[in-house]
């Protein structure tokens, strides 16, 4: 499967992207749709140039992107240092799971906007509530993936370690954690996607910068060209961040797919 160059799959991928672009060009060139409904590639490009040169409402494009990425990365870091250990522990110890599961099961299906106002009430309109929202959005998928990852470990792995003389904690650190890593990374990738989708919601309240806010504010004024630009930038950075995690995963979980 590891053919280099032009496999049929690669051709299909490129063809799909090209076709979408052609359809976009074609549709807007007919003039059947107003700029508000589908802005032309040209005006999106122009708004990109304009916003990167002159900024959007007091901040440069990089500042908007940086603000969002900063929020995302801080919240993501918090998720990693909390959800991963708690999820792994929860999978390993049924008592820990009995404590944590009801909380997570309850809030997980709630739409973030449903409890955002409460977060704002508790934590104010500054970064705190935004980070909390992103954190909560990312926590559940990572936690759940970690629990599942531990549960999926073949019991022989644990028996094996026991018969070699390992105690519970040694098994947890030397066996459970590495054995669950593949699932942990799956959870981390899911969480990044979820946090990204929550970003717009998080920047709905009292934000003055950020890609989510930029898109929202532009949509307030029917600036579809800027909305398109913002969405495309968010899409591309999302793909890049996902690739980054995949890259890190390959480095750490070097045995993935080779067992």
């Amino acid at each position: 499967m590891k053919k280099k160059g032009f496999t049929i799959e690669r051709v299909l991928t490129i063809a799909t992207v090209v076709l979408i672009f052609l359809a976009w060009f074609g549709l807007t060139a007919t003039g059947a749709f107003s700029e508000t409904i589908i802005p032309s590639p040209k005006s999106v490009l122009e708004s990109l140039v304009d916003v990167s040169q002159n900024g959007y409402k007091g901040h440069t494009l990089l500042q908007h992107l940086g603000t969002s990425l900063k929020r995302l990365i801080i919240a993501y870091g918090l998720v990693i240092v909390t959800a991963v250990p708690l999820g792994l522990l929860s999978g390993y110890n049924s008592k820990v799971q009995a404590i944590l599961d009801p909380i997570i099961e309850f809030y997980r299906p709630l739409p973030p906007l449903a409890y955002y106002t409460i977060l704002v009430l508790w934590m104010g309109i500054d970064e705190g509530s935004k980070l909390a929202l992103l954190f909560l959005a990312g926590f559940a998928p990572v936690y759940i993936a970690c629990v599942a990852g531990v549960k999926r470990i073949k019991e022989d792995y644990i028996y094996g370690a026991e018969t070699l003389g390992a105690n519970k904690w040694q098994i947890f650190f030397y066996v459970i954690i590495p054995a669950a890593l593949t699932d942990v990374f799956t959870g981390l990738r899911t969480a990044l996607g979820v946090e990204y989708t929550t970003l717009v919601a998080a920047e709905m309240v009292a934000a003055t910068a950020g890609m989510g806010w930029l898109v929202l504010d532009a949509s307030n004024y029917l600036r579809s060209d800027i909305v398109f630009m913002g969405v495309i930038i968010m899409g591309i950075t999302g793909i890049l961040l996902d690739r980054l995690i995949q890259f890190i995963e390959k480095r750490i979980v070097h045995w993935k797919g080779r067992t």
Partner: protein
Amino acid sequence: MKQNFRKFSALFLVLVLAVLSFAACSGGKNKDDNSVTIGTLDLVNGDLIAQYEDWYAKELGVDVKIIRFDSGKDINSAIASGGIDIGQEGTSPAALAIANDIDVEVFWVADVIGSAETLVAKKDSGIKTIKDLKGKKVATPFASTAHYSLLNALKQNGVAETDVELLDLQPDDIFATWQRNDIDAAYVWYPVLDNLLADGVVVTDSAQLAEQGVITADVNVVRRAYAEAHPEVVQKFVELQLRANDIINKQPDIAAQDISKKLEIEEADAAKQLKSFSYLDAAQQIEQLDNVFAQVLKDTADFLVEQKSIKSAPDLETFQSKVTSEFVKAASK
């Protein structure tokens, strides 16, 4: 492999065509369609009375569907997509719609905003005038008429926007942050306004700003295609609004009763809110639509350009062509 590829391309083509035709179809309803879809914000004006009395369903003579929206921005999107035929929104969204070439006509002034939208400051914030806002946190829902009024108030008092920390908050969030003392002032409307007034002081309101020429109002817009196909429906709609305004102006008790029931609020609150707007009769409507509102919308759009919220505003003639008194004239004959 080649055959597979051909199959796949065929499939892809079908998919693209399907998406395109879907996009084309959703662009508007059939012209012969004998119905009207009305978008409402449940603002305190004749629209609520007409809804409460069920006039639309009874008297418009076509199938009526009423959809409630949360903001003028959503009304604009719904109109642009052909999802609704008639909608009500503030002058800011209406100006935006025209500036963005959404094919609408402004045909009715539902209310002119007075003290209904007010700039309130926390009692202990030390803010007494607009100049005191410097360095303070002021919240308002962006792209609303209140936002427009606030920015104009700052401008008229020589306060640079950058000297004030402006926050984009929806009314519910304004109340939440107000209670937490996260903000010092807010330009907002009822019912949240009531809550803020409990421990706030009035800095200015839209009535005062209107005297200085910054007029904000709520207007009704209609999709031009719909207006052309069903002028009688639009005319009848205006008749109902005129009747409602008549009740508001001449029998305010009944109006307050209707509105309080419709919104499930206290009658006294409804009465108070009704007083915070002004409602125009037929003659005033014609006068305002013919001579004032194109300019109001043009001013609003120009201001948004100044704010760099929109790229450019069309000229006054365009606005004039999008504001019409013909339905009011026909209805009041």
